[in-house]
């Protein structure tokens, strides 16, 4: 059994390609995947930056072709006609697929490294697969390890700690100046989208009042309605400045709209209460010398972008620590998969032992002519001998299968105990342990069953 992942993402396909593969309703697609003979289990992850199918298969090559055809014919029929459609798709098999999925869930592979949405999107994909009965025990285990890995990465690294958008950097900055926002008033100069995005995060922290000043009062009224504030014309700026702890500007003007004398006058009226001014305008809306005034902290869009870029760089550095965690978790999962492979062999070994014991016991008892009590005694003895003989190899097999060397040991066990030899004693029970059917037995197994065997 192999995990196979086929997909495309922002790393391989431009947005105009990605949008053609976007899955609006994953239900029918999942149903189709679940019906494919080559695929045992399937999950379909679809976000604005990636579309990936994660499947479990016994025939990786056939599954690979099936998935490529699925991407071309089912997800984006119009794109499949393009001659170079295939080059946008990537494939990962086995450990690489596991590693990739863990990176995706941990937001290490995201366009904005450390972004929080992807984990929720992967969880949603998993829930949908469960809803459409497209998922079984192995992919369930894989995804649950992916979620645990993502949590570990967030907890143990700084991958998600620093803000990487201008709006979030503005909020972080405000938090370094102000202790709380519930008694703070904000003034928005301008009524554009940028300013709305920036104030939205602050409003969530409980800004007590928002005032919007704009050249066109009607636009100010629109934004004021959306952010729950009041609308004003630009002529009110001096009076509004006196009451504002936080000033955000983003207005289309060739000359600064706020200069040092105006801000100094407002500060005087505020009796020195500090003021944070964030100038998102280009050209700048606030004269740079405003920052020279005591108790005023002026940041323009370049300052914020610089901070956002530095934070993004810091996050990228944290991905090295995240990769180490992902490697550990990948090894753990592969150990679990290997242990699954031991399940049929261990059952086979025990069944073979039992068959040999039963046959030899029967033969012996016929010749010895024992009483019923004596027969029971010999039977118990024979069971104990077989169990004791098998205990060491079975325990060792379970332990060694945590790493790759265990696979070789598994093969050795099959040879040493002649499990694949039809002429060996007790081979008549082998039909139910046909190696070709090992996968089925594995699929039945869960975490507990692996430990219980």
């Amino acid at each position, binding site marked *: 059994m192999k995990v196979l992942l086929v997909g495309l993402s922002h790393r391989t396909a431009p947005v105009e390609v990605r949008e053609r593969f976007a899955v609006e309703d994953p239900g029918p697609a999942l149903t189709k995947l679940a019906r494919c003979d080559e695929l045992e289990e399937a999950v379909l992850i679809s976000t604005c930056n990636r579309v990936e199918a994660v499947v479990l298969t016994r025939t990786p090559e056939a599954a690979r072709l099936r998935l490529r055809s699925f991407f071309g014919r089912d997800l984006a029929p119009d794109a499949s006609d393009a001659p170079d459609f295939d080059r946008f798709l990537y494939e990962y098999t086995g450990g690489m697929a596991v590693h990739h999925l863990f990176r995706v869930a941990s937001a290490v592979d995201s366009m904005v490294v450390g972004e929080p949405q992807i984990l929720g999107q992967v969880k949603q994909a998993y829930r949908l697969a469960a809803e459409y009965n497209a998922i079984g025990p192995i992919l369930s285990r894989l995804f649950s390890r992916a979620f645990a890995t993502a949590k570990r990465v967030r907890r143990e690294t700084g991958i998600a*700690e620093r803000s990487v958008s201008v709006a979030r950097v503005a909020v972080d900055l405000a938090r370094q100046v102000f202790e709380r926002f519930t008694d703070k008033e904000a003034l928005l100069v301008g009524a554009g989208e940028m300013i709305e995005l920036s104030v939205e995060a602050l409003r969530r922290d409980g800004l007590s009042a928002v005032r919007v000043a704009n050249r066109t009062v009607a636009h100010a009224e629109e934004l004021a309605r959306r952010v729950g504030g009041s609308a004003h014309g630009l002529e009110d700026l001096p009076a509004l400045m006196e009451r504002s702890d936080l000033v955000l500007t983003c207005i289309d003007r060739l000359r600064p709209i706020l200069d040092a004398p105006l801000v100094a006058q407002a500060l005087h009226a505020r009796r020195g209460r500090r003021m944070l001014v964030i100038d998102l305008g280009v050209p700048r809306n606030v004269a740079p010398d405003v920052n020279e005034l005591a108790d005023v902290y002026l940041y323009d869009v370049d300052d914020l972008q610089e901070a956002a870029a*530095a934070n993004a760089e810091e996050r990228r550095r944290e991905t090295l620590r995240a990769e180490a965690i992902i490697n550990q978790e990948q090894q753990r999962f592969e150990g679990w998969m290997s242990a699954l492979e031991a399940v049929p062999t261990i059952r086979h070994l025990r069944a073979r032992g039992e068959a040999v014991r039963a046959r030899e016991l029967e033969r012996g008892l016929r010749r010895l002519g024992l009483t019923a009590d004596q027969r029971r005694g010999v039977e118990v003895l024979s069971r104990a001998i077989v169990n004791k003989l098998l205990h060491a190899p079975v325990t060792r097999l379970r332990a060694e299968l945590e790493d790759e060397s265990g696979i070789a040991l598994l093969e050795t066990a099959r040879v040493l105990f002649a499990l694949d030899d039809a002429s060996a004693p007790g081979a008549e029970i082998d039909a139910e342990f046909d190696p070709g059917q090992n996968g089925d037995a594995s699929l039945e197994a869960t975490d507990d069953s692996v430990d219980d065997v």
Partner: protein
Amino acid sequence: MIEMHQLAAALYLGAGIAAWLGVALPAPQLGRVAVGVLGLGALIHAPAFAFLHNAEPPIPITDLPAAVSLMSLLAVLFYLALLLRVRLTGLLVLVAPAAFLGVFFAALRLSDPGDPSFAGAGSWPHAHVVLASAGFAFLGVAGLAGLLFLTENRRLKTKKFLSLPLPSLEALDRVNLAALALGFPLLTLGVLTGVLWVQTESGRPWTGSAHELWNALGWALYAGLATARFAGHQGSRSAAAASVGAALFLLFAVVGVGVLA
């Protein structure tokens, strides 16, 4: 008892190191660990100070090392109380090392015999030391908050903007103000009880000793600072700078003059 002071000093040092690492890495969880270690240090420091009375011979509270131990303990307790209301974990980078230095100094000098002239002066010496130590402790925290405010203010003004787990300027300014509001009245009461103590001992309120002179100057400095601050004539930056300067002056007036004497 001295060993307990040494243990408290070690814990304060540990808290300081954890707090610095928490800011430098940055790792906010280390800041929380540092607060826990500081609290543990205070739990050991409080009985260590109380046992000074049971030492053989008993160490009077009027001894400079004992008074410095009390100041450090009160400063730590005041900081921990502030933490309940304000996000101040980052201030530990200054509070913990300051507490360590105070307790370390006390532990080094506690074995020296006390000044016999203080014996038998009634309750005024105790009242003076407790009140003045509380005043010094609170004003010391005001100075530390002022120092961090100045550092943070400079960082934000020069746009060296990093998401460090340090308190906001507003929080530091509030702590500075609250510590001044509590510390100055306590210092005033400490000075008054000191005058009454001197009166009881020598029959006059002023003997002209270096300790009296420097502490009177320190009180006058804080009187000016408190007037300017509460009358609203001072911005937060100049208030922070003034509280740092005044705290350094007071440190010299209390510890420096005491050691030199």
